[in-house]
Structure formats: structure tokens, C-alpha cells
């Protein structure tokens, strides 16, 4: 598959294709969930927020399907070399995407708590942070589909920018809370939203590292990772 050569046993190829399809579908849903959760938050759209919370279950169901298929492939096909690395990566990536889905759900759940009065300045920056985090997730999944380790390294580089967003929002919110003690509750929820997005970026980085390993057979070198060390406030 990876190098365009097919397996002698065609059913094996079909299963790998199915596994990739599930990861792509799962990833697409998680990306959309983060994007829409952020929109719902900004627009105070409670209906969309409720739907995102409910639809997280679909992501969980796909994760279970990935697990079943990966275990089946390992048991019945005894994959080796790049096949083995890909199946293991898919299994782990599914777990990570499930977490990203949970963050979307978490953001959506805060929508009713943050209320309709958006006086907090941080809220204007959060959508950009969400876009960047979603781009990282999309980039990591595209890298998985293409087995492009260089693209995976680029995704990791972006994590620094997400961390910068988080640190900036953290400072803004802390200042805001000191100046407006009456909105501390609302600001605290926004801080959690920012933290969730920061974690989405970390998870996209994890996916990218798995893509790198699946493609190359060696762990991504430390220096090429985005690194978490910058998010000192975390």
C-alpha cells in the first residue's frame, strides 16, 4: 500500500484501506466537532453545542471499530514491517482522536455556562487558536493518509504557535479576572477552553509522531518535535 505495491493477498489490502478510511472519517468528525464547538461558543448557539455533545458518541463508536479491525488484522494477517507499524499507529491514533473529540465535547458543554455577553477580549482570539489547532489535526491526518513524514514534522513545528496562543490568552484572562472579578466564572471557563485547544495541539503532535514512526520505522528525533516546554502556565 505505502509504496503502491499491493499485497499478494488482496483482502489484506482491503482491510488496510478500510482501516485508513475509518481513521479519516473519525478525524474528519473530530476536526468538525472542534470547529463547530468554537462557532457555537462564539455565537452562543446552544442547539449546535448540544448536538456536538451528542455526536461525540459517533467518534467513540468509530474508535471501537478501529480497535476491532486492527486487532483482527494483527490476529489474522500477522502484519510485519511497515504494515505492522501502520496498524499499530492506526490503533494509537484512534485513541488520540477520541480524546480530541472529548475536548470538542468539553468546549461545547461550556457554551451555556459562558453566557451570551461576550465582553471578554480573549474570545476574539480563541477562534484563531481553534483554527490553528484544527489545522494541525488535519495536517497530521493528511500526513497519515499520505505517509508523509516531512508533513508530520511540519505539524509538530506548529505546536509552538498553539502554545504561544495559549500563553497569550492565559495572561489576558488573568489580567481580565483581576480587573473584573464579577466575570471570573466566565473567564475561568474560557481558560479551560483555551487549555482544551492547547491539548488538541499536543494530541495532533502525538498523531504526527506516530505517522513519522509508521513511515520511517524510527521515532521522530527530539529536536524536530514542537515540544511542550513552552506552555509554562499549563
Amino acid at each position, binding site marked *: 500500500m505505502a*509504496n503502491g*505495491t*499491493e*499485497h*499478494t*493477498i488482496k483482502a*489484506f489490502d482491503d482491510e488496510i484501506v478500510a482501516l485508513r478510511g475509518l481513521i479519516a472519517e473519525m478525524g474528519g468528525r473530530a476536526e468538525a466537532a472542534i470547529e463547530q464547538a468554537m462557532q457555537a461558543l462564539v455565537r452562543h448557539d446552544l442547539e449546535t453545542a448540544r448536538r456536538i455533545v451528542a455526536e461525540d458518541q459517533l467518534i467513540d463508536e468509530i474508535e471501537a471499530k478501529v480497535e476491532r479491525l486492527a486487532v483482527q488484522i494483527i490476529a489474522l494477517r*500477522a*502484519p*510485519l*514491517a*511497515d*504494515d*505492522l*507499524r501502520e496498524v499499530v499507529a492506526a490503533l494509537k491514533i484512534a485513541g488520540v482522536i477520541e480524546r480530541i473529540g472529548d475536548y470538542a465535547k468539553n468546549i461545547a458543554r461550556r457554551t451555556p455556562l459562558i453566557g451570551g455577553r461576550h465582553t471578554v477580549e480573549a474570545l476574539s482570539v480563541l477562534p484563531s487558536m481553534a483554527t490553528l489547532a484544527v489545522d494541525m489535526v488535519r495536517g497530521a491526518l493528511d500526513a497519515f493518509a499520505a505517509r508523509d513524514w516531512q508533513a508530520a514534522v511540519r505539524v509538530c513545528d506548529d505546536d509552538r504557535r498553539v502554545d504561544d496562543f495559549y500563553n497569550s490568552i492565559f495572561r489576558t484572562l488573568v489580567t481580565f479576572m483581576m480587573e473584573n472579578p464579577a466575570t471570573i466564572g466566565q473567564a475561568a471557563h474560557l481558560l479551560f477552553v483555551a487549555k482544551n485547544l492547547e491539548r488538541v495541539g499536543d494530541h495532533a503532535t502525538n498523531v504526527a509522531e506516530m505517522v513519522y514512526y509508521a513511515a520511517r*520505522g*524510527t*521515532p521522530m528525533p527530539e529536536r524536530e518535535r514542537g515540544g511542550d516546554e513552552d506552555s509554562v502556565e499549563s
Partner: protein
Amino acid sequence: MIEDHSVKSDRPAKMSARNVNVFYGQKQAISGVSIDVDMDNVVAFIGPSGCGKSTFLRTLNRMNDTIAGARVEGQITLDGTDIYNPDMDVVQLRARVGMVFQKPNPFPKSIYENVAYGPRIHGLVDGKADLDAVVEQSLRRAGLWDEVKDRLHESGTALSGGQQQRLCIARAIAVDPEVILMDEPCSALDPIATAKIEELIHELRGRYAIVIVTHNMQQAARVSQHTAFFHLGQLVEYGVTSEIFTNPREVRTKDYITGRYG
């Protein structure tokens, strides 16, 4: 991340092949193979049918000598001595480098006689008690003693396939070899008998240098610490087993082990 079960052997290579070519008449079956085999790491030879892995295995104790028109070039040494040296006693060589074949081939004699035959003709034992001891020790090492100790004088051919194969291993061990060559030793055995042979290989590692030819990739992965992939008479890749099966360097190796060999 992948645990390397191979051992950095501090003993010199037991056998070394350098630039070995094998011809069957005009046809070249092996081209320029160089490889070292030590006592601490089981070596698996893998590769598609006709790739030369069995041919190469057989050069290690000169079994190809028996094939008319077969010719070996290059150098193969056992403890530094060229085994193709005209002075080499081939019978002695094959006692030092024993072989177990695909199909169990016990002599049509008793279990006891199968094992006793080698030590007796090689003059390795002194008297009945000594021979009994060698037979018992060999059968124990081959993991067969408990199953046959009460019927040592029954025919070896009456045993099950897996027991027969372990009897053949006991027979090879009985002449106190240094190297054991196994040519698809489990291909005629059921999974339980196969597991017993594999466990046996694990136990024998370190005491003997072991080379196994197998078509079963999982078996190669399970029993060996070093794996050599042969293709079209060449040694394509030789390395640590865990590396070969998770991250082979050569595309040909990868295509073969992942089932893309076309």
C-alpha cells in the same frame, strides 16, 4: 523501542562464509554470500522458494558434495579452518556440523539405536554405561526423554512426527556437534510439535551455533536473533531479527516479509 534480543557475542564467529558462490552445473545458485554465525544467536534464513537459502545452508556442512555437478567457490571456515580444504574429513565435519531435515528421518531402528549410532561409530563413548549416559543426555536435551524413557527399544518410526523430529535432533546432538543446521524442521509438524521444537531451539541456543531455514516468517521471528533474507541467490539483508521484521532496510526484504512479493 523494539527490544533487541540478539547478543553481542564475545566469542569469535563459529562459522564464516566469505564470497561464496555455488553452481549447479552452469547455473549459479548462490552469488557472493558472506555471513558469520556465532554460538549466541540463532540465525534464520528466509526467502522465497528457489532463493538459495537451503543450498547455502547445505554448503555449511558440505551436503552439496553429494550432488553431481554442484560446485562451491569462496571460503567457508569452521573455527577458522577452511572446510573445503582437501584435507578436511567430511564425515568428521558433518559430526561437528549436524543437520536436521524437513521431514523427520529416523533410522528404522529403536529409539535408543537412533541416538546411539553416531557416538558409537565416531568412537565417542567408552562402554555401555557411557553410551547409555550419552543417549539419555541427548534425549533430555532434545526434550524427548520423559516421553520415551520407558520405551527406548521401540522403533523410532513408531513415534509421532514431532517426536521423530526431536529424535533426529537428539541424534544430531549425540555426536556433540558445534553447529546444528535445520532445514525447515517444522514444516511437517502440527503447531504443538512446532512449538516444542521452537522451545528446544531456544534452550539449545548458546550451547550450539544454530542456523534454521524456514518459510514461516513468524517462526523466524520467534526463534532467531539474526535473520538473513535471500533472494535470487543473493544475501539481500542480514541483521537483527527484530529490526528485519519491524523496519527492514531493503525494499526487497520489506516486500517479501509483508507479503507483497510478486
